[in-house]
C-alpha cells in the first residue's frame, strides 16, 4: 500500500472536493498539448482517458481491417473482425460519452507499418493490440478510485481478453494462453501506463502522454 503514488491521494482529494462542491482544486483537469500530443490527465478521468485512447487505437485498426480485408480472409474471419470492430467502436464511443468535455481529443493513427493485405501481419498486429489492451486494463485497475468505474473497466477487459484469445487461436489454434501472456501461476500479464503508452504511441500520430502517471513524452 505504501508504494502507491501520492498522486492517488491528490486525485482522491479532488474527487472529494468535487462531491462537496468546493472549487479550488483542479487535479482532474485534462492537459492538452495543442501541437501533436495529448495528456490523459489525472485521477479517474486520467484512467478513463487512457482507456479511451487505447479503444480509439483498436477501433481505428479494426475499421481499416474490415474496410480492406486481408487476402484470403474467410467469411467467418470477416465476421469475427466485424464483431470485434463493433465492440471496439462501442467501447470508444462509450468512453467519449462518459468523459464529455474531459475527453482527450480524437487521435490520428499511424498504421504506415501495417500491411493490411497480409493475414499474418494483420493478425499479429491484432494480437499485439488485444494483448496490450488486456495488460493495460489489468495494470491500471488498482488506480481506479470509483467502484463504478472499476466495474465498467472489468466489464470491458474480459471482452478484450476474449478477443485476445480468439485472435491467438486464429494465428495458431490452442495458443490462447501462451506463455508470452500467461505465467506459471495462471495469471495474465499486466503493464503499467508508462510501459503501455510507448507501444501505443508507435501506432499514433497524436502522441499520448500521462504526466500524472510517470509517463511524459
Amino acid at each position, binding site marked *: 500500500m505504501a508504494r502507491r503514488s501520492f498522486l492517488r491521494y491528490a486525485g*482522491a482529494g479532488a474527487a472529494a472536493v468535487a462531491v462537496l462542491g468546493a472549487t479550488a482544486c483542479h487535479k482532474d483537469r485534462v492537459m492538452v498539448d495543442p501541437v501533436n500530443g495529448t495528456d490523459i490527465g489525472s485521477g479517474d478521468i486520467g484512467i478513463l482517458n487512457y482507456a479511451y485512447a487505447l479503444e480509439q487505437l483498436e477501433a481505428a485498426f479494426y475499421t481499416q481491417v474490415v474496410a480492406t480485408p486481408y487476402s484470403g480472409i474467410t467469411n467467418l474471419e470477416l465476421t469475427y473482425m466485424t*464483431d470485434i470492430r463493433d465492440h471496439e467502436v462501442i467501447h470508444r464511443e462509450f468512453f467519449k460519452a462518459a468523459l464529455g468535455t474531459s475527453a482527450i481529443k480524437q487521435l490520428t493513427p499511424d498504421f504506415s507499418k501495417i500491411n493490411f493485405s497480409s493475414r499474418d501481419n494483420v493478425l499479429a498486429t491484432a494480437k499485439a493490440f488485444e494483448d496490450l489492451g488486456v495488460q493495460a486494463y*489489468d495494470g491500471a485497475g488498482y488506480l481506479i478510485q470509483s467502484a*463504478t468505474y472499476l466495474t465498467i473497466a472489468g*466489464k470491458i477487459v474480459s*471482452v478484450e481478453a*476474449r*478477443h485476445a*484469445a480468439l485472435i491467438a487461436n486464429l494465428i495458431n489454434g490452442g495458443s490462447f*494462453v501462451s506463455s508470452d501472456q500467461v505465467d506459471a501461476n495462471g495469471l495474465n500479464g499486466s503493464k503499467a501506463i508508462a510501459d503501455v503508452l510507448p507501444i501505443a504511441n508507435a501506432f499514433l500520430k497524436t502522441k499520448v502522454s500521462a504526466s500524472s502517471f510517470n509517463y511524459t513524452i
Partner: protein
Amino acid sequence: MNIFNIIDEIEKVDPEITERLNPRRAAIKNITSFGSKVAVAALPFALGTMLKRAYGAASTTDVVGVLNFALTLEYLEAAFYNQGFASTGLIPSGNSDYIGVIRRDENAHVKFLQNVITSLNATPVQASTYDFTGGNNKGNGPFKDVFTNYATFLAVAQVFEDTGVRAYKGQAPVLLGNQTVLTAALSIHAVEARHASAIRKLRRDLNQAPNNKPYIVSSASLGNDTGLSLVDANYAGEENVTQGGVNLVTALNVSTEAASAAFDEPLTKDQVTSLVVGSFIVQ
C-alpha cells in the same frame, strides 16, 4: 482543525503513517497545499478518504473472503478438468493440449490462491465434494453424461468459464485500490475470459454449437446465448446494454447483440453460490 495534528496523533500509534501516505517522506508536504485548498468543513471527509486509501478500502477479512470465494470456484474448475482427463476416451487426443492448458491454469490458480491466503496469515478453504452432473451427489443431474459425452463436457466447461468470469468481475469493487490482490484477481479474471473464448470457439468449430461466438451475444430478452435453457440463470443480466447510465443501443444506434457482447456483466457472490452449491458443489 489542523491536518498535521491529526497525522502527528496517528503517528504515535502508527509510526508508519507517513510511509503509508507516501513512501517519499518529502511528498507529505504536498498535504499543505492540498489541505489549504479544501474548505474547513470538507476536511474530515477528505481526510477520511485519504486514510481509507492509505490503509486499504477493504479489511483483510474482506480480502480473504474474496480470495476464499475465488478458491472455491477454482477448486470446482480444477476438479472438473482433472476428472475429465481421468475419464478414458472423453477428450479426443487432438484436443488434449487445448483442454490441457486450461486444466493446467485452473490447477495453478488453486495453488496461487492458497499461497496468497496463507501469506495473509489466513486459512484457505478446503475443497468440496463435486457432482458434475449437477445432481448434488446423486450423480443423476441434468448433465448425466458429462464425462462420457464430449459435447456435454464442453457445454459444462463453457458455462463454468463464463460464470467464473462473471464471479471475479463481481468481486473487484471489494478489492478497490488494492494493488497486489486486485491486480492478481484481474489477471486471473482475464485468463478465465481467455478460456471462455477458447471453449466457445472450439464448440463452434466442432459443430456442437454452430452459432457460438467467443463472446456472449445476448438478445434483448435473453442473456443466455448457449442454447441450453438449463443455464439461463448463469447468463441472467448479460443482456444489459446500459453502461454508466448510457443506453448504448439508443445512444450509439448499435444492435443489442453488439452492445451486450461488448460488455460482460458481473454476478454477486450470492448469485454465483446459488448457481453452483447444491448442484455441482455437493451440499
